[in-house]
């Protein structure tokens, strides 16, 4: 028997994470995320073969690589042939996940493959932050009905049974909410660590000038060289950076403001790339996915048209209206 306060907490939890919503947005998120991972963030096979063959051991093995290393001898998997086989298996899984055939197993294999390559790249003493949140989001997708709409699975099911699948589910929105909360956590963590470590001096302009100059020199970025010489502009940019990172979490509590924060995130990371060469492309894509698909009441028009095209026999069975 659960006590009333516990039941109330569970109810609140379920209301937040598992409201009944359309599955169309989840399908759209699946397509954009997988396409991005397949064609934009594709791990370089040559790079991974070079890492595996030039090194005899992992310097700082990441958890997944430690696990694999326990199960499979290094000279079997971490060779030119081994890495090539994994690479192509992951690509095939990615294409299946994109078109939605055996969607959830394909998504799981694709996400696992993505984790494998990122972990492998970071097992030689060099870790970066660009992929972590996106990888967690990708790993959440197989555990939601990601292939119920806009997929070959849905088409085949309809052809087989003559009935369209349910249009809504209470498991359709949690991966997007999960990505939202992770973004809020990492932005806040980044912002607060600047203030705790650097204090208000982080916004004195000189700090950003030094950071930008350092990156612009090593990466040969003319725009960054110019910005690093503009003191007032750097004060404004550093105040904007701290404000964005510290207050992104507000979008969790005031959903109406969320699109502004997502758009701000896309511009923020695009600016970082143009000025300092920080390749946070996964963050740009994730903010874009949340901008397009997080609000189930605002399915993009092209997504609805695509769904109608995929269902020539008529509209889907509506289970329950989105809440």
């Amino acid at each position, binding site marked *: 028997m659960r006590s009333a306060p516990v039941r109330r907490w569970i109810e609140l*939890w379920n209301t937040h*994470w598992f409201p009944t919503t359309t599955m169309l947005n989840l399908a759209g998120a699946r397509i954009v995320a997988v396409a991005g991972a397949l064609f934009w963030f594709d791990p370089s096979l040559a790079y991974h073969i070079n890492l595996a063959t030039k090194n005899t051991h992992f310097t*700082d093995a990441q*958890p997944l690589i430690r696990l694999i290393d326990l199960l499979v001898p290094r000279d079997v998997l971490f060779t030119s042939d081994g890495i090539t086989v994994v690479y192509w298996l992951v690509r095939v899984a990615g294409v299946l996940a994109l078109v939605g055939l055996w969607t959830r197993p394909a998504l799981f294999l694709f996400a696992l493959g993505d984790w494998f390559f990122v972990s492998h790249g970071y097992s030689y003493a060099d870790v970066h932050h660009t992929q972590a949140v996106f990888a967690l989001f990708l790993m959440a997708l197989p555990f939601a009905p990601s292939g119920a709409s806009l997929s070959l699975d849905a088409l085949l099911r309809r052809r087989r049974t003559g009935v369209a699948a349910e249009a809504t589910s*209470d498991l359709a929105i949690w991966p997007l909410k999960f990505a939202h909360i992770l973004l809020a956590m990492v932005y806040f963590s980044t912002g607060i660590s600047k203030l705790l470590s650097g204090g208000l001096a982080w916004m004195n302009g000189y700090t950003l000038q030094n950071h930008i*100059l350092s990156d612009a*020199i090593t990466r040969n970025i003319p725009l960054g060289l110019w910005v690093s010489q503009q003191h007032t502009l750097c004060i404004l940019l550093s105040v904007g950076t701290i404000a964005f990172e510290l207050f992104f979490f507000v979008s969790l509590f005031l959903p109406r403001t969320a699109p502004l924060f997502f758009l701000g995130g896309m511009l923020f990371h695009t600016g970082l790339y143009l000025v300092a060469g920080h390749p946070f492309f996964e963050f740009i894509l994730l903010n874009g996915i949340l901008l397009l698909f997080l609000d189930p009441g605002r399915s993009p028009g092209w997504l609805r048209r695509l769904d109608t095209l995929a269902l020539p026999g008529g509209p889907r069975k509506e289970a329950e209206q989105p809440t």
Partner: protein
Amino acid sequence: MRQPKLWISLFILAVIALHALPVISYQGHRQTRWPILAWAMYAKSYPSGPVETYNRWGVLVTAQGQRIELTAHMVGVSGPGLWKHYIRPLIRGDAALARELFTRLNRNRTDSIVELRAEGERYVVTDTGLDTLPLPPITYRSASTPSL
């Protein structure tokens, strides 16, 4: 449908809770818990004063006198990894690392590497633009100590 929600809820809670781990046990630059990471990026602040930076790179000289730039690909690390784990220690005079690097680079070479130089430049923002100043190179020869 209760069971999937329970597992998903545990997954969400676990991922969120795990993010406390890098804060409680900070690993610095060498993090080994991807994708659960500490997010303290570019946290260092600089006092008001000159805006300056350094750029360093490695140059290899072969027995036949050819000059080659040391790349991450040659060593088998990433670009930032080359800086953090090779160039920076070489600048600080790590002769043991230089010996290891000679062995590593000469493994499959016919024209072997005989000299390794850590070269660099200092850049300073001034009222008139960006000044560039060369830094003294640090040189390692096969089986030798560094010389300035």
